[in-house]
């Protein structure tokens, strides 16, 4: 049996608007994935540490405060420093098109803005994971976990 896709969903920085992050977390779980939800006020360093400890396939970050140009590049840098660049980074928030282009160029796989459906996000994650699934041992954790 194939192991479930594991995704870390987190807010970063001080932004407390977590409706979107929680909706996406629930949609991914309903889409058959294992979701680790890290909640509010996480630093990029914490996010990367959790991602590695929890052995996730991807990190989804929600930022609505305008701090995206600080945090996404920093998370990419930290992942590279810890030899964990195989973990896919995606995100969402209030992010202008020109910033999306720049961040995707740096290595953020996709950024979703207002008006996106949760099924679009679930489809995107499944498709990406299909492309890049690493061979892993089998050790299924609980299906739902909150940090």
């Amino acid at each position: 049996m194939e192991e479930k896709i594991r995704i870390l969903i987190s807010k970063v920085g001080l932004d407390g608007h977590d409706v979107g992050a929680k909706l996406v977390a629930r949609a991914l779980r309903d889409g058959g994935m294992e979701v680790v939800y890290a909640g509010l006020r996480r630093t990029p360093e914490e996010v990367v540490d959790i991602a590695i400890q929890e052995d996730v396939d991807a990190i989804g970050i929600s930022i609505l405060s305008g701090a995206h140009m600080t945090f996404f590049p920093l998370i990419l840098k930290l992942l590279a420093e810890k030899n964990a660049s195989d973990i896919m980074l995606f995100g969402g928030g209030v992010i202008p098109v020109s910033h999306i282009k720049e961040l995707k160029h740096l290595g953020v796989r996709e950024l979703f803005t207002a008006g996106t459906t949760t099924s679009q996000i679930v489809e995107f994650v499944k498709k990406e994971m299909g492309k890049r699934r690493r061979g892993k041992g089998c050790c299924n954790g609980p299906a739902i976990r909150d940090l």
Partner: protein
Amino acid sequence: MFDPQLLEKLRIEKAEWEQILKKDIERFGERRQEFSSSSGIPAKNLYTPLDLEDERIDYLRDIGLPGKYPFTRGIYPNMYRREPFTFRIYTGFGTPRETNCRVKLLLKLGVNDLQLAADLPTQVGYDSDHIMSRGEVGKVGVAIDSLRDMEMIFDGLPLNSFKRVSTLFNSLGPIALCLFMALGEKQGLAIRDYVVDLQNDVLKEYVCRGTYIFPMEAGVRLCTDVVRFCAENALQWYPMTICSNHLNAAGAGSTAATAFAMANGMVYMRDILKKGMPIDRFASLLCMFLDEREDFFITIANLRATRRLWARILKEQFGAKEPNSMALKITSYSHGGETLRELLNNSVRIAYAALGYVLGGVQFLYNASFDEAVSLASEEAVKVAVRTQQILAHELGITNTVDPLGGSYYIETLTNQIERRMRQIIEKVESLGGALEAIRKGYYQSVIAEGASLRQKRFEEKDMVSVGVNVYRTEEEDPEPLFRMNQQSEEEQIRNLQALRRERSSREVQSALAAVKRVAKSEDNLVPAIFSAVKAYATVGEISDVLREVFGEYKEAVSYL
């Protein structure tokens, strides 16, 4: 309310009409299965005097006259004929210097009610050079590290240039109050010369907005210290605005959101009563912030129902005697359905939302700007927002008579239905032990999570329509912001903060902070001690750190379910 004979005739005619309606529906169908919004109240095809009869509406008891209990038709006898609602704008970004320029522009445009947006580090009590402030300085609002920043923001702008000046600071209400008082003093103004208004409502931060710092009891104490201080020293100020807006936006729907907000308000009021201040001494200082984003008529009915229920609760449950204590002043924010696509359409959405609040009898009206779906407001967009308020106030005859929709069969029925639902939800919260317990037990959170999922589902199934997004969509790229943030703001702010730390008397700061710590450990009101610290140019982060030492920090139970 109606002649029984008329009602009898109407009942017969309506039965005949229903047969015609039935045939119409059989032949042509209806656009939707159910005509309802996230408030959960479905609209019927038609409302008549029979609905008012079914609701047992008594004109004098339930609708009454404006300026009189239960204030359904408004809190003033002459409402907007005396003066219109305030023209309020929420603004602030980057450094105090940048915000000062924007505020001057707003004043020129005729904005008379200024709400300062502080950045997230300020709201959660970190100085701009704190590690947690990285990337967030000056982003969602202006960076305020100390009184010096307030002096810059209002440079050349005496606080009495506006009818009211305000800010949020939900976890740090006393600091906000003291920043304004200290600035007023510097500008040579007495407290009676200007009006400060604070959101200062921390409870909803623990369930949705997220700028909590301290455990809930300490959070409540800081909020009520501000109210008590103003009741004794600044009676014409507005020290607390109890919010439904954020709870609704997060997913609760406007009816549950307003009920939760009222239950939160009851926590604050009980805390103040417990400390020995009688209800009529402070209740008139409280305002509410109401919001409905999906249904125009529910917007109107929500304001009317909330005024009536608040008045009844104050009288029946809190024993208020003064009419002023029961007359609820309302703030509303015209926004909610804005889209990232086709930004200009948002002006239309904002204008209709504003119209709804005005027809509901709002006192303080904010308008969002059409480009806020993509960035902070540009000058061009904020100008349209202000002009929209002014057009509503002066051009269309909307403000010529009091409560023009009062007596509408639909509006009055809705007003009753909403009041009843709010009462039920408040009773549920009370049965759980009040708002603090309901939040601890996750009740608010579960209502919000369920509502948010349902709203998303309705959007995805096009039951909730967003024009240009899920219907009538054209192929075009999302727009670029008209407003561009200065990327150097963070560095500039940190330089200024570090200069301040060198220039001020650190002995004075240390002794003022020690006093804050002493008072925090006692039951006394924290405002005077924080006032001294603010005047000594202690920073928001330094004062917050002292309070963190005494109170500890709130830890959220992390869950997305």
